């Protein structure tokens, strides 16, 4: 009887795994076929106005990059505070808030930034998009830093203190160094997460058909343009959306794999 139950459960879980992986495979295969079909290297050379994707890819990276410049240091310092200095209810409240923020729907963050930046400044801008992405990124970086620092044995901190180092020196020289690989991986994964976001940008940066570095204007975004292009009636626009989706997926995949590669090398 027990053997039978064992077999049924094994069969059920295998089936569920296959269904899940099946859909994932289906998505990837569709994406590859449709995306590769309309993929061409000239996409990297022309802007959207000329039927290419260059400005969109660059714009997406600029916004995500600025978000990272703001979100990574802020999140790391907050994470260090939570793990190394924060005690009692105050720290716990911040930790819980950060956890809640991590699961906040991204469209809500977009709406929030729309209310506090887009409306007061009178229009969508690359700046607003970057802020939106930074807010998305912040709790992930806080959480990663906090967790990775918690894996550093307390004896290592004590050993630093026992040599006469002050607490902040122990944290900077020893603790962070010990957790470096984990934190870096977490940051890469956070970056991979925000680079593919659409909802926080939809009404903060919008998108632009032209190449621009002006962060005070609507800013080119790959994800938002995929959304726009897919809604257009012409076949050529939808093909371009497929190609853009394909490029985006490959980019995110690459960042993710890099993150995993770093972790694996560390564990060796």
């Amino acid at each position, binding site marked *: 009887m027990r053997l039978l139950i064992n077999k049924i459960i094994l069969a059920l879980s295998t089936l569920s795994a296959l269904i899940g992986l099946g859909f994932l495979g289906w998505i990837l295969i569709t994406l590859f076929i449709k995306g590769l079909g309309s993929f061409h290297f000239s996409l990297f050379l022309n802007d959207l106005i000329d039927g290419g994707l260059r400005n969109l890819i660059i714009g997406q990276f600029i916004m995500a990059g600025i978000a990272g410049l703001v979100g990574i240091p802020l999140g790391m310092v907050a994470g260090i505070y939570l793990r190394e200095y924060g005690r009692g209810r105050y720290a716990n409240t911040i930790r819980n808030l950060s956890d809640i923020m991590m699961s906040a729907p991204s469209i809500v963050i977009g709406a929030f930034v729309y209310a506090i930046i887009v409306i007061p400044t009178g229009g969508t801008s690359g700046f607003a998009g970057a802020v939106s992405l930074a807010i998305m990124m912040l709790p992930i970086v806080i959480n990663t830093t906090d967790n990775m620092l918690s894996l550093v044995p307390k004896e290592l901190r004590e050993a630093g*203190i026992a040599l006469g180092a002050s607490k902040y020196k122990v944290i900077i020289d020893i603790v962070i160094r010990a957790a470096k690989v984990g934190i870096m991986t977490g940051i890469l994964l956070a970056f991979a997460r925000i680079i593919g976001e659409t909802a926080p940008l939809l009404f903060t940066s919008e998108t632009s058909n032209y190449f621009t570095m002006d962060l005070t204007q609507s800013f080119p975004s790959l994800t938002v343009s995929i959304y726009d292009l897919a809604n257009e009636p012409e076949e050529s626009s939808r093909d371009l959306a497929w190609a853009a989706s394909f490029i985006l997926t490959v980019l995110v995949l690459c960042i993710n794999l890099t993150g995993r590669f770093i972790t694996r090398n560390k564990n060796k």
Partner: protein
Amino acid sequence: MVMSIEKFSFTYAGASAPSLKNINMEIAKNKITSLIGPSGCGKSTLLRSMNRIHDLYPGNKYDGKIKLLNEDSGKMENILDIKKENDFINLRQKVGMIFQKPTPFPMSIFDNIAYGLKIAGIKNKTEIADRVEQALKDGALYKEVHDRLNKSAMGLSGGQQQRLCIARAVAVKPEILLFDEPTSALDPISTAAIEELIVELKKDVSIAIVTHNMQQASRISVYTAFMYLGDLVEFDKTENIFLNPKEKQTEDYITGRFG
């Protein structure tokens, strides 16, 4: 005598009862003093009070005195009065500590040892290099690692890591070294090497060692303190503790009747 502990009590943050009660003992100069007793007796707590590493966590309470010899003035100074950051750095450079698990820093072998020297304010590169080499020799590690000083210390074996930690502590020329069960995570061969090293070190420093291993205490120490449930039951010459204990509790523990 380099350290004198007088009427010392210690209470952990949030605890209602003290973990150490009215402890009186001494650490003799250039001798090895063992702290033995069953788990939870407070021997590690006492050892960790001697360089105030407890202060890393807030809210702990000290009572009584722990006096450390100031080599310059010849006076005994109470380390429980220390409040300033600089004085703490000073204290910990005088009273070093080795932990149960080896604690190499995630950096090169060389940098591990240079770390304490830099904190001590030594900037001259040749002096640092000389003292790193000397410390590795003192730690009986130089022969094994001299050709890979720039490799990560994490690649060393457990016994080598522990000797590196000892070398790191020795490098800053402490007056006292505190060992908190330094061999309990090591195999017998590494243990023997560390024991030999500790005995060798006592010509330069005074040593206090917490150990679960009574043979170890009897092999290496001149004085032994037996602790039980936060009390110092008996403190005497090691041979007296092991061969001729005055207290019944000590005898029961030594002969293996409890603990």
